[in-house]
């Protein structure tokens, strides 16, 4: 019930945050409602659709399957953080160029998931890209353009390294 509350300290997009949360509050509700970081979205609330994807201690997680109270001491990164830092600027440019988003609701999660794959440094096949983003629902694009955009960035990053 809502009378069970706890204090947490964590960093969110590099900023230290001290907040009191309901024990039952999910990480994504905490980010959206208490910190007003509304770039992380809520689609299914049971870990299927990927709209709430965020990074916790460097790993991509579902913000609806983790409680805020579990984030004591953690480093949380959201789409707002990785956008402002420029970490995924090339990926965002590729999504824009390829029109790899329509309504945009899945896009923050899709970008973070794609960045996880791209961070391995390999140039994945289209099949591998499709497999990797298959935890992220997109109802608008049919995925083709998203795969194109991720593939283009993988090739560009690999080209830049050699």
């Amino acid at each position, binding site marked *: 019930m*809502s009378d069970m509350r706890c204090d947490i300290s964590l960093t969110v997009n590099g900023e230290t945050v001290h907040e009191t949360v*309901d024990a039952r509050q999910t990480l994504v509700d905490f980010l959206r409602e208490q910190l007003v970081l*509304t770039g992380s979205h809520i689609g299914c609330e049971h870990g299927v659709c990927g709209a709430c994807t965020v990074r916790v201690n460097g790993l991509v997680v579902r913000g609806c399957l983790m409680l805020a109270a579990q984030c004591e001491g953690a480093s949380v990164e959201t789409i707002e953080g990785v956008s402002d830092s420029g970490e995924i600027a090339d990926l*965002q440019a590729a999504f*824009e160029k390829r029109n790899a988003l329509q*309504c945009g*609701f899945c896009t923050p999660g899709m970008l973070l998931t794609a960045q996880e794959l791209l961070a391995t440094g390999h140039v994945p096949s289209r099949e591998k890209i499709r497999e990797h983003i298959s935890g992220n629902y997109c109802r608008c694009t049919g995925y083709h353009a998203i795969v194109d955009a991720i593939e283009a960035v993988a090739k560009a990053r690999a080209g830049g390294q050699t």
Partner: protein
Amino acid sequence: MKIVDDSPPVLTALDRPNSYIGRSVPRPNMSRLMQGRAQYVSDVVLPRMAHVAFVRSPHAHAKIKSINSDAAKKSPGVIAIVTGAELDKVITPWVGVLTHLKGIKSAPQHAIAVDRACWAGEAVCAVVARTRAEAEDGCELVQVDYEELTAVTDPETALDPKTPVIHAELGDNLTFERVHVAGDPDKGFAEADEVVETTFVFGRHTGVCNEARSIVADWNPGEQRMTVYQGTQAPHMMQNLFAKHLDLQEHQIRVITKDVGGSFGIKVHTYADEMATVALSKLLKRPIKFVADRIESFVTDIHARDHRVKARIGVKKDGTITAWEIDDLTGIGPYSVYPRTSGIEANQVVNLTGGPYTCGNYKARARVVFQNKNVMCQYRAVGHPIATAVTEGLVEMAAQRIGMDPLEIRRRNLIADDAHPSQGPSGIKFEALSHHEALAHLDAMMNYAGLRAEQERFRKQGIYRGIGFASFVEVTNPSAAFYGVGGARISAQDGATVRLDATGAIFCHTGVSEQGQGAEAVIAQCVASSFGVPMDRVRIIMGDTDNTPYGGGTWASRAAGIGGEAAWQAGKALRQNVLAVAGSILQAKSETMDIRNGIVVDKDTGKERIGLDEVARIAYFRPDTLPSGIQAELVATRHYVPRAWAFSFTNGIQASYLEVDTDSGFVKLLKHWCVEDCGTVINPQLVDEQVRGGVVQGIGAALFEHCLYDERGQLLNGNMADYLVPMAVEMPDIEVGHVVTPTADSELGAKGAGEAGTAGAPGSVMNAINDALRPLGAAPLTDMPFTPDKILRALGKI
């Protein structure tokens, strides 16, 4: 301005210097969507805002005997608990009928059920609290005493005399029936060498928008105004309906639509819980927010399809189609949805079946019946996937029966490209279509002969691949014939207002809205081109009934064709106004000048005369220097509605190439092609992506998506884990090609493109599966979705 595909467009009559028409300009709204800086309704927070959650009926049909909210009222954070009877004093019920659907009937639907719940998921009580979580806590404490009634769930028996009538006052469970006979179908069947007959089934499915339906209603008693933030496709339609049922004037309602997380036809209807939210704001005099959770979405977002079509086709040995007959039965839940009705899809099935072909001997019946399931209504490509799959399934079965290639039978029967204007079997009128050119384009694009050879090679290795086609027509750019003539206050026309700002940039206010299709970009392309400024000097204002011309919104593939034309004309009008001012400044004749790239130039030589910033400076700040009698008019408005044709039909053809694993029943999609003709292509990339997204939604219907109900009216898979939608790994690459046949009804010549993909994909996938399994002697599969168990059953393996 950056352009994705920088090949210059083919010059047409409407091309101007620096034209953006026909170029893949990126959408201006993408950056904020990608950076997490969008504003969806679910993100909106207002001062003193409270949240509502609904107690929903667990029964498909039940009398509400009593509601006890004593415990809930004491729950922390709870502000108010409101029943249907209490809310009925604030908002009146509605009936979803239109006069042009003769005989359609429905019962009054309340914002919250009063006395009786008619489907599992209908709201029976509202709990308003400080937070959504606290509202849900309150819901758990509300005690509703139900008396379960018999649920009517099977459309096949809905009209039987022994089946209970859901709304006694209506007399029976028939919502709507249409019978249509054209030509001489009896003679046509008598002349046929072969008659192929089968039954097609289209499972119920739904939109599964990633952002669930969301609304924030803010009644301000001090201003006597209601501001509604709503993820809707039709802001002005909702303004009218809120006013009508809350006993307010339309000018007292402002509907604001910012970013919308997917719509696909789901968000163009009246939802009882959204109406309740607006009424609760008026009742409680504070902002109220409702965001459906995923389970609520599955049991209350409109469902779609759910058709059973008995169909037959007559064909001669030379491939000539001689007659068509269909008998469609569809179950639509307990109410016809307001205000567009739930009769439109069946009506469309009758209109569109046989549409691409010359054979005019046609007999059709469609019946729409009530049932105790969630409501059913118009979803992307309304009726098209059904009519197309029925028609194209019959055509390929007929081809198989007479031993003819499936493309050849189409060549012999599709309406000739030079035969227009023409009409379909139902009498629908076609201005100009390009079936044969589209077919030839597809044939070449997919290397059909090569694929057939490859298919044959694989068959010898025991690998079963199939190729399936679907020719189609698509309704776009609807005139008032769609809804207005039936009495619905849904605008067919759309307007655009363009104004020059004080620095020479322009604002364009448009009645169409954006849910990701790219309407914002397309409107900007049109107005930038016709006025004569770079696109980065254009700002589009949309989705606000206080600040946009009256318009219909975005649905039925109308935004580019109708809204785009209005913007094009408004840009032209403002150009004339600005040139009149420039002419008086320069002492030159305005007709000798043009505006190009933001600068007034001599039309003949292109010589720069004066910048728009300077024209604006003089007109706004030093009008005293203009000759006496010259008043600068730096705002122009134009409206557009199609008049010559009730609908601007587009056409196209799709092909699916797939492999069926005959051990597991799984279908692997290898490739998909679509060639379509949407007239003038304003933005090639956006059209291609509309087609691709539409194709995948159609594939979802063909292979995965199904709202499974039991016989008691309980939805069995109302969550994203059990209700399957297409995921990236299952989807093929999709190649898109175009034929361009502009409509002469508008200067732009653009038709719609948003539903072509969804119209043809299910039929082409069905035909490909049946093509794959044919050598194995499987009976044709006609019951969508084609799940592995159905395929294995057809193969006799289970």
